[in-house]
């Protein structure tokens, strides 16, 4: 394995680790807000590492730009959604 | 490798068949309109997955099914949107509007 491939492997491993960590948080944390907190942080990191690995793999500027855009969009969407869902969760929820 | 690729099409085609069965169950057993609409869409995507899976070969998915599936997805969305609007209107406004209808204008 070349150093480049090793690096990609490591990045992928980190990415999967953070995704898994987010999931564990989602299952284990006791209340909605701490779950929300754990999940968005971990996921964005996970996606970041994966995007990095893919970018290194391709080594193409246009694709790297697209990957960066994807990550930024996901980051942005996750952050906003987490904020709004957290607010929404504060409201009392009538039963269906 | 070829067998594996052929296998992929089969895996998704059979998943499509299972989705059709699941959706059928939901469509028949459930009463809530929204859930029946979801079931309708599950059957629809099952049919499409079956279409794609059976059209899969080493060269990818046959483009004709791909085009038909895109058409089908859009048609299903149109139907779902109207059905949902109709169900909500029935729930909110009742079976028919009395008095506001322009029935007085003619037969």
């Amino acid at each position, binding site marked *: 394995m070349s150093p480049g491939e090793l690096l990609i492997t490591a990045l992928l491993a980190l990415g999967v680790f953070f995704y898994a960590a987010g999931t564990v948080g989602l299952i284990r944390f006791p209340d909605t807000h701490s779950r929300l907190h754990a999940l968005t942080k971990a996921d964005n990191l996970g996606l970041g590492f994966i995007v990095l690995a893919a970018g290194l793999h391709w080594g193409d500027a246009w694709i790297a730009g697209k990957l960066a855009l994807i990550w930024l*969009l996901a980051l942005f*969407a996750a952050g906003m959604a987490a*904020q709004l869902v957290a607010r929404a969760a504060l409201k009392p929820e009538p039963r*269906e | 490798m070829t067998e*594996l690729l052929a296998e*992929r099409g089969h*895996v*998704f085609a*059979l998943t499509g*068949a299972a989705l*059709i*069965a699941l*959706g*059928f*169950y*939901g469509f*028949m*057993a*459930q*009463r*809530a*309109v*929204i*859930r029946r*609409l*979801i*079931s309708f869409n*599950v059957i629809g*995507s099952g049919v*499409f997955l*079956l279409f*794609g899976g*059976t*059209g*899969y*070969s080493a060269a990818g*998915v046959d*483009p*004709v099914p*791909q*085009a038909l599936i*895109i*058409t089908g*997805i*859009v048609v299903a*969305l*149109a*139907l779902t*949107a*109207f059905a*949902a*609007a109709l*169900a*909500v*209107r029935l*729930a909110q406004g009742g079976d028919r*509007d009395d008095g*506001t*209808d*322009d029935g007085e204008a003619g037969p």
Partner: protein
Amino acid sequence: MSLAFDLALCAFILGAAALAVAGRNLFGSVVFYIVYGVLIALAWLSLGAVDVALAEAAIGAGVTGVLLIGAWQGMKEAGALEDSQAPPWPVRLWAALGAALTGGLVITAIIALPGQDGLTRTVADEQGALALGNPVTAVLLGFRAYDTLLETLVLSAALAAVWSLSPERVWGGIPGPKHVSRPDGVMASFGRLLPPLGLLVGVYLVWAGADQPGGAFQAGTVLAAVWILIVLSGLRDEPRVSSLPLRAVIIAGPAVFLGAGLAGALAGQALGYPPGYARTAILIIEYALTVSIAATLALLIAGPARRLS
């Protein structure tokens, strides 16, 4: 490895679908359907059908979710959220038997299928005549343009159908509630930041669609989603359904498409393109369709007119 991934993905798809159709909680069902849409888009990626994956990502994972949440909200307002009791057991039993029979029948049919090559080769041989690099676009707007024409008119008819549900006293008015948001809040900034990007992605998809995966339907759906986002975040209100410019936008794409088809009929070949100009004609139709599809889908999701101001 790919096979393991495919099998796991299919297991997830089936799980999400089962929870969506049979779950006790209606909102949970809606959520599982959204999840299911994402997974189905991934299934199309795994099959290498990127055009379909794009459509499914935009429609199944995006627009349909908003539509269903809106319907759920409408039912809640009407106090008509059906109770979450499981259906009585005889109903479940018969439905399960019927489902098993249907599934068994379909699986039998799949197993009995003879191998046939489909039309992949034929499309590849003929798409040169249309000067298009994307075979799916060649089928959609060339070989089977008639299907696509009818489909765009299904959308127009569906919009008329949704509008026909408007209460008479608010006819000509605006669909949906008047959305508001805190001007400096997260929601408003969401509505300001995402649309330019979405617009870019939509235009890119229709531009790329001639030669790469993409096209009018995917692009139109993304643009519709962008508009819905703007409305939801309270930045702009929906147009009145009686607005003439709006109606013009809605019919423009289908009218251009149908006009081209009828012009071809007068010239001797209905839905045929003049030799050498096929690509240009198809691109014009695609751009016109994108705009109309975006407007039509956005209004389909918004529903019938609900208020006068």
